[in-house]
């Protein structure tokens, strides 16, 4: 194995070890919360059906006409599913900041030891970036696995004649939330993850600016972040600039946006490299 790749792998494995507790908590929370949804939602439906049949002296068919069949979609369109996803997204946003600051804010200035390692400093940067994305993809994987297990649980709980014939995949495809976080529509999935990646790369640059220039760095970071945001929003303003709503085709706006985001990501990595190798202080 090449020495530089080995050092990157070592650092990534090290960062993953440090992330693992946090990640396991999020995975556990996702499974637990989803499990509640897979059990509570169909149970509540069954109880409502039974109650309707007993209070109204109605047949199963009449109750079905009133409440409709229960589908797996009903079990996954709940806060118990959306909640852990929201916690996971905000958790990793927090971790993207924490992953840098803990090197300086810990009991010992661990940053000193990390920066003195005989490896390229950008390996530190990339190991942190990789591990955050590995964590995000672990949660996505957890969600996918959970949904297919959940389908078995829900179909076992709900009586066959009350269960709508919608399979796990159809239910996933119908839920608008999953279009963005699960590769139901690969281009949406790549788009959302691409925007997220650029966001984290820019965030890393802002953190390194603050670490390099202290108070002055905060202002530099605000200006840099605002500039990156303004440039990213530029394609949406083209129609206003030209006073013509149809001056660009929507596909062209997407291609321009992709180009701009790529440019922002490359610029941010280059700025981060400069800061990390030349400016950062311990």
């Amino acid at each position, binding site marked *: 194995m090449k020495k530089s790749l080995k050092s990157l792998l070592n650092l990534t494995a090290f960062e993953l070890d440090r992330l693992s507790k946090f990640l396991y908590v999020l995975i556990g929370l996702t499974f637990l919360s989803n499990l509640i949804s897979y059990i509570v939602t169909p149970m509540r439906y069954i109880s409502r059906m039974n109650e309707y049949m007993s209070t109204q002296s109605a047949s199963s068919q009449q109750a079905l006409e009133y409440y409709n069949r229960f*589908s797996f979609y009903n079990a996954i369109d709940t806060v118990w599913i959306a909640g852990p996803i929201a916690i996971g997204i905000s958790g990793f946003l927090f971790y993207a900041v924490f992953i840098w600051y803990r090197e300086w804010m810990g009991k010992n200035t661990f940053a000193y030891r990390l920066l003195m390692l005989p490896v390229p400093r950008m390996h530190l940067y990339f190991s942190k970036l990789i591990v955050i994305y*590995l964590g995000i993809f672990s949660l996505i994987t957890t969600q996918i696995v959970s949904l297919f297990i959940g389908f078995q649980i829900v179909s076992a709980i709900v009586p066959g004649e009350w269960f709508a014939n919608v399979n796990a995949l159809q239910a996933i495809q119908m839920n608008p939330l999953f279009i963005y976080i699960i590769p139901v529509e690969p281009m949406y999935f790549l788009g959302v993850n691409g925007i997220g990646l650029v966001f984290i790369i820019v965030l890393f640059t802002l953190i390194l600016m603050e670490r390099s220039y202290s108070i002055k760095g905060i202002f530099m970071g605000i200006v840099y972040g605002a500039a990156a945001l303004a440039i990213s929003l530029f394609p949406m303003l083209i129609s206003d600039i030209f006073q013509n709503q*149809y001056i660009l085709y929507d596909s062209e706006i997407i291609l321009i946006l992709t180009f701009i985001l790529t440019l922002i990501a490359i610029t941010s990595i280059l700025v981060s490299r400069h800061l990390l190798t030349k400016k950062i202080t311990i």
Partner: protein
Amino acid sequence: MTKYSKLFSILTICLLTLVGFTFYQAQAESVRPKVELVTEEGQAEELDLLYFLGNVHGYDSYRNNYNTTFEYRNGEMHYFDDLSILQKVDFNFTPRMNRYTEDYRSFMRGKSRQTDHYTETDEYLLYTGMHSDVNWRQFNDNSLTISLLDKETNEETAQEVHLTGGSYQSVIAAYLDYPSLTLVTQALDEDSTNNWLIYSYDLENPQDEIAPVINSKHTLGSPTIQLSDSQSKTGRYLSFRTLEPGETDEYDYVLNHTTSGYYVYDTVTEELKEVPSFEEGETVVLTEAETILVGNDLEDDIVWSEWNFEDDSLTEQGTASMVTPTIGRVQVHYYDYTFNQGLQLINGRIYAFEEDYVEDMSRPLFQVIDLDSFDTVFSGYIGVETNLDTSQAELVVYEYSLDYLLN
């Protein structure tokens, strides 16, 4: 390797799950219902000009929905789901616009996406849209953009014209017989009521400002006027009908409207004449090129006659049996600005459309009549063949049009 085991395990699980999910999804049976053209009489090729968008909505219980949007063109169904993401974002839900943006992408840049704003002939593609149609922040100041694309040379010429005679003008149709252009607009009158204005313009003699040749409301004296908009927009004649308020309720609310007359406008002589009416049955008026066809609608049959604009003579041509007593005679409300849109006369064929229902399921019907023999050369419907466990599937056809230059 032990220190990397966690890293590689997580990486492997993630990759396997994501690849597995993508593969499973690709392999899974498609949930979309299939849509097909069912021929009951004649040849399906007769309907090759037909161009429409449709949507099938299937459901088996509350919230378990399946939606499939498709486009029918060149005699085939094209499913929206099969388009790439970039094609999807450029997709127009007006079918002819898709062909224009595909074939004349550069010309279409900066122009609105409303079918009414385009007229196509074998030689030209004409755009007539107000400034405010493309600049949504701009107040409609009655400034019109006229752009003409010469299909052979790919040369585009643009002109700016100010329309007088009404405010808040919007172009409803433009009829082209190069270099003569007849514009039909809707505008607000001085009393803020809707009105039809007709303008005549010479594309080879640009003007800064034009005044209407006809102010329909003043000429016809009716508060409600509707236009029968031909698909080809190259004919010499335009037909209108006037409506009068019928019964009113105790609050003076108009309960119904009755047709008070049919009129034809000659774009060459700039004259407007009333079409003779029939003693029995409704009237339908279709125009193409130099022909004005007047139909006496007897429900199961329509007796077609050719009307001579010059001498007012009506010559019976033949009787066409309609597959249903209502096909082609789409119900029009007084607030609609067009009528006759379920019947179109193109290349010597009458195309009729109807939104039919069978067992609560929508089933769009089509009929094509040959004007030489007045025989039905096609009749059929759009059917849904579903592989879902659906108790119902709804089919909606919209933006139905006949792309007469498609072949």
